């Protein structure tokens, strides 16, 4: 490649200035003699000095209760804006259940300001901007991704969508029909069936985090209800902005403050949102699906955090990594996949929820006849973690992996801005990331066993399987495992197949 061509790549060569990395030691290190060490452990590396960016440096308060994080990065002429609103399913009134999902569609697709849906879409597309809306249980996120050369007009469109959505009636009819088709498909895929039933078993069917839109609600919703929900719940109160890219901080904040002036929701959201009241019932559950694999979801409630300095939180991170969160270095992946070839995917998560308990879940997919064998391994490994501390080597492996990979969490302006915005939303203290590594490094094997004993409960396990139950329960031809061998005194219950439009059990 000619030098002149390299020189044209200015956008890749500009160093952005969010933080400094002292990995330049790499470039000053003289190559050793031409000998190659026999083992990789014999390689010597220069230190990587990394300083965690100070969140407070990027934080700004705007009128109306808005908090904005701005991380400049001039290396490419691109800008990203994400707006996190304090609304979502948790703001739905009984007669509005499911409306947040419709809002997600209609906010983006229903036109805005003086532009009807088609004109709005045409202008966004012509600018090559990307505008998206995602409604969740405890937030609605709207995002703009645009070239900085057209930023003012893109911001006009973005803010018009947020403040003055038209919820066009014609487009509403189309979107309702499209959503109806999506509802029709939600029992087609076994993995989706399993995920839904798992949430129901853990959190119940009534909590807003598991509640789903039904066809009858969809049919009932009209433009007036959308307008009312939007007016009532979407506004500056509690709004968090994450802005990154080719912007000048002062100027973008001034632009956004001006555009958002007077944009207030009628109601102030109750915060934090309430958790589910449901008490999970341990047992073995199955949902029939005619597939050659069984999809397994095994676990129970996790926990929630109230104090980010609690050492148990970090011990739980290490514990889960050792059990099934660490890929090939974790016990479940090693035994289920690598040793026995029983599954392509096998792992665990231990959820530490911000507002209510997260979920502890082991998941894998295995051919019907070996599902019980893999389940047996899961039960053994949970028991083992409770009975004996992990080796020091296992704990140190996780610590080194997480600590050395830590800088990646801040490796782009967009990731940084989003991380800080999420910290703000979840109420993490300002020193959370600064202390993260030292807290992780303080975890001992004994601490891992203690949290395993405290937070892993074999007697509370919910074992959910989706697939051909008769084949799954029979176990493998070698007689290593079957339902009878893992059942103990657990109850066994068939889950009903559900009508995809209502999600109610079919008669």
């Amino acid at each position: 490649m000619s030098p002149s061509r390299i020189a044209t790549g200015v956008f890749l060569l500009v160093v952005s200035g969010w933080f400094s990395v002292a990995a330049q030691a790499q470039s000053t290190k003289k190559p050793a003699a031409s000998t190659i060490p026999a083992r990789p452990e014999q390689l010597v590396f220069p230190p990587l000095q990394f300083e965690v960016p100070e969140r407070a440096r990027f934080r700004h308060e705007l009128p109306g209760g808005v908090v904005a994080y701005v991380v400049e990065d001039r290396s490419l002429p691109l800008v990203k804006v994400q707006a996190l609103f304090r609304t979502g399913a948790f703001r739905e009134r009984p007669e509005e259940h499911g409306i947040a999902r419709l809002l997600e569609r209609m906010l983006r697709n229903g036109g805005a300001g003086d532009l009807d849906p088609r004109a709005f879409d045409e202008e966004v597309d012509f600018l090559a901007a990307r505008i998206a809306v995602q409604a969740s249980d405890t937030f609605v996120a709207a995002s703009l991704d645009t070239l900085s050369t057209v930023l003012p007009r893109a911001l006009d469109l973005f803010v018009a969508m947020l403040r003055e959505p038209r919820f066009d009636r014609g487009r509403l009819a189309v979107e309702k029909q499209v959503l109806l088709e999506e509802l029709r498909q939600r029992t087609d895929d076994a993995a989706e069936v399993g995920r839904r039933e798992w949430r129901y078993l853990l959190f119940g069917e009534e909590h807003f985090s598991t509640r789903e839109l039904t066809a009858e609600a969809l049919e009932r919703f009209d433009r007036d209800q959308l307008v009312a929900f939007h007016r009532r719940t979407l506004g500056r109160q509690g709004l968090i902005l994450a802005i990154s890219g080719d912007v000048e901080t002062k100027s973008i904040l001034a632009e956004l403050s001006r555009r958002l002036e007077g944009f207030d929701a009628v109601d102030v959201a109750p915060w934090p949102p309430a958790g589910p009241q449901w008490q999970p019932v341990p047992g073995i559950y199955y949902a029939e699906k005619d597939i050659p694999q069984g999809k397994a979801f095994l676990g129970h409630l996790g926990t929630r955090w109230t104090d980010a300095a609690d050492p148990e939180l970090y011990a739980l991170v290490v514990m889960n990594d050792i059990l099934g969160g660490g890929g090939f270095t974790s016990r479940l992946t090693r035994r289920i996949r690598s040793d026995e070839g029983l599954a392509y995917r096998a792992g665990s998560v231990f959820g530490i929820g911000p507002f209510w308990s997260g979920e502890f879940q082991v998941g894998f997919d295995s051919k019907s006849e070996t599902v019980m064998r893999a389940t047996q391994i899961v039960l053994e490994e949970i028991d083992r973690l409770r009975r004996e501390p992990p080796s020091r080597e296992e704990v140190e492996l996780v610590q080194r992996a997480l600590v050395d990979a830590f800088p990646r969490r801040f490796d782009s302006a967009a990731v940084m801005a989003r991380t800080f915005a999420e910290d703000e939303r979840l109420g993490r203290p300002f020193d959370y990331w600064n202390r993260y590594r030292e807290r992780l490094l303080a975890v001992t094997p004994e601490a891992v066993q203690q949290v395993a004993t405290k937070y892993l409960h074999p007697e509370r396990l919910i074992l959910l399987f989706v697939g051909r139950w008769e084949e799954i329960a029979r176990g493998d031809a070698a007689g290593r495992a079957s339902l009878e061998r893992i059942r103990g005194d657990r109850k066994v219950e068939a889950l009903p197949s559900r009508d995809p439009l209502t999600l109610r059990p079919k008669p």
Partner: protein
Amino acid sequence: MTMGTRRMQRFARAFPLLLLGGCFGALGGLGSPAWAEAPSVRVPVEEFTLGNGMKFLLVRRPELSTVSAGWVAKVGSAHERPGLTGVAHFFEHMMFKGTSTLGTRDPIRDRQIIEEQEALQERIRAQYARQRERYRLGEIDDPFDPANRTPELVELEAQFEKLVEEQRRLMVKDEFDRIYRQAGATGLNATTNPDSTIYFITVPANKLELWFWMESERLRDPVFREFYAERDVVQEERRMRVESTPTGRFDEQLNAMFWTAHPYKWDTIGWMSDLKTLSLADAQEFFSTFYAPGNLTAALVGNFDPAQVRQLAERYFGRLPAGKRKVPEVVTLEEKQLAEKRMNAVCDCATQVAMGFHTVPFRHRDSYALDIVAGLLNGPTGRLRQRLVLEERLASRAAASQEDLRWAGSFWVQAEAQGGVSLDRLEEALWRELERLKSEPVPARELEKVKNQVTATALRNLENPFFLMFQLLFYEGWGSWSYLNEWPERTAAVTAEEVQRVVERYFQPENRTVVRYERKMADAPGAAESPGSALGTAQEVVSGGRVES
């Protein structure tokens, strides 16, 4: 360790339109004035080749704390043959099993055990040959069902398990992964597609030499231990990706029907019966044929000193011997399709129709205009959504995809039915949009809009260093990374007349394959009992002519 399928590409619309780098020069004319300021960006790649033929591509990003690094072997499932389908992807899995020094405490005994295992497997393979014969004679219904095993086969497999146990006691499990992980490296993985196999990771910038050590070592001295357990893992991957999804198996058979002669006709994951019989010798032969340095290219994007990287490359990868034989080319050319093909399927899935056409391979001069056609049809204001979803309300979703693979290409349009709209109407509407492209020149503003989007996408694709590294390897695997810089310029030059020309040339009824999926009506009397209705029908209709609604 994943694999890419053409079906995935077709509907996810990931490649190639979204994998575009570089950008046009200044855009003028009909767009908003702001577009005249659109920057010109090319990927600044530094390139060098070692004496053994291995090529390196470097892009510096000094602001990062990491290096995203990877390499591509220019081999995929298109290089396979019947009986060995799936070997490229399976082999990719085996590349994570260690070396003579990584993965075992006793390399000598480890090698001996592998040889003893192979001797037993040879006898087991003979047993399965007999099982297949029994199957052909109708004596058993499944040659691989454990319940059908002969006592001798049971005994041989038990002996084999003992050797596996012995080997496991000597092993340092998954040490390759462990070493990377404890060094803070993330995202160790690989992916196989019909044309290439890509291995990748992100390492802390100060530990880049570790990448050179690990990658060169597994190329220099790989040991394929745990071969048969991993073969089981790949079968589980197939069950998960293909056999347990609503349309997975149908898509696989559609693909097999679409291609007449070309090895693209089998999916990258391979046929199950082939996966069950792959041998260690097959893997070793595959490695020696396709993993010579001259068939490999590495790419690094991140914080490094290029001069030092050259030294490390020479020291570590320079020790790999050059290949002794020429890497075989895929020589089979797809036969010209003589008549429309059709597949009618019934499944637990949305009622939908897809229509595919044979087109052109990667970098063919018509591929750029076909990319524009896909851009015209796709997106919130694309023609398919505007016409089929919003105006006529026939579809709930509709999309197009241009799939120019290394050796041959295809173009697909598809739509899901809205309400009770018949598949005849939906198919007719899709065809009508293609016909409209033939008969009416594309308005200038619409063409400009698509080009604006490509410009922005090109810039966005440079944001993520890992993604940039991946694109370099992906296109290099298909022929040349320089496509990243060529594509925008050549696409910007496409005219409305060229759009009409390619549409007219490729979107012809006799060049068409149509698949229609109809939702299985579970409550319909007899539906579940009838194999014919449950599995649908596949047929080739030996006549041309367009579909009438």
